[in-house]
């Protein structure tokens, strides 16, 4: 079977509840994704390399071009209700940023409020999951990540080869060890760095639909 394609995907999960972070991390890892968890929207932006400006000039959201790609994030899944920056605020910031807006965002919430759901979808969220999130929800993430993979590859011709999504005969997708050198940020507390170690599909990989 070789390496699952999922292991090439890196998900950033944002939730202020430690229980829910633990849960979403396990759900994603069970599906063989690489996972980083953070406990707030501002830490998520920091991880993404989006410099929240000292003066909250929203038009001025600046990206430091080098830091941004230090860790590729293929999808962001965030809780809606968080103190400070809500999941909705985070979604807006991401969609306003020219360098981040292509990253798919999924919102989770314990409350089934239709107006809230619509607001998030209108703002560009790909999905809205009711909490507690289940494995069958996580299975819906992959198509969204495939989309961005394609887009990214245009900008990144070296990776072109990997794009051919041949699920079965995947010789050795380079496990991007190179990503590792810049993981220092992830080591700070509150961030659980994903493993870049290859994960083998054995038994764990939940068949994507």
């Amino acid at each position: 079977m070789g390496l699952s394609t999922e292991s090439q995907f890196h998900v950033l999960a944002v939730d202020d509840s430690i229980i829910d972070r633990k849960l979403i991390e396990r759900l994603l890892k069970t599906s063989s994704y690489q996972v980083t968890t953070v406990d707030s929207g501002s830490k998520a932006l920091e991880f993404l390399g989006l410099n929240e400006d000292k003066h909250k000039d929203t038009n001025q959201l600046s990206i430091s071009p080098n830091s941004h790609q230090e860790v590729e994030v293929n999808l962001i899944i965030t809780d809606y209700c968080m103190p400070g920056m809500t999941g909705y605020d985070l979604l807006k910031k991401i969609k306003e940023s020219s360098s981040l807006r292509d990253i798919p965002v999924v919102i989770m919430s314990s409350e089934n409020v239709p107006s809230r759901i619509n607001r998030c979808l209108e703002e560009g969220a790909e999905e809205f999951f009711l909490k507690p999130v289940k494995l069958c929800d996580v299975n819906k993430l992959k198509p969204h990540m495939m989309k961005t993979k394609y887009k990214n590859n245009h900008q990144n011709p070296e990776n072109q080869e990997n794009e051919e999504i041949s699920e079965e005969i995947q010789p050795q997708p380079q496990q991007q060890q190179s990503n590792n050198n810049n993981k220092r940020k992830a080591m700070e507390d509150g961030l659980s760095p994903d493993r870049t170690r290859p994960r083998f599909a054995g038994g764990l990989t939940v068949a994507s639909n």
Partner: protein
Amino acid sequence: MEMWRQVFQYKESLFREGILDAQFTQLQQLQDESNPDFVAEVVSLFFEDSERLINDLTRALEQKCIDFKKVDAHVHQLKGSSSSVGAQKVKNACITFRNFCDEQNIEACFSCLQLVKQEYLLVKNKLETLLRMEQQILAAGGAIPMIE
């Protein structure tokens, strides 16, 4: 086998009485050889979180001038963590609690706090017993009974 049957029956009774719901089964399904302590870890986080929130709630309701928004925020968090582990009765008590918060019904909020405490202590006790029994099964090389 006798032990297994005992655990199965105990666990089944927790579901039948509505103390636990299907979310707890979801948690157990996420536990495997590579993460043998996942459920125990989540459950102990739930205990810590609940105790902190129940203390915060008690303090918030002791104030002369009760800040119902604050109370509601604590109950909302407790509802979230209890639903994430499948502690159904705690979750349900939180739902009722929030309604009375909305109404700013002090008396009812007090009795809801008592109910939440009571349901929390119940599920804590049951979960501790269950996890201890399951640990024994695992130590003897057996598999944990699953309730769908």
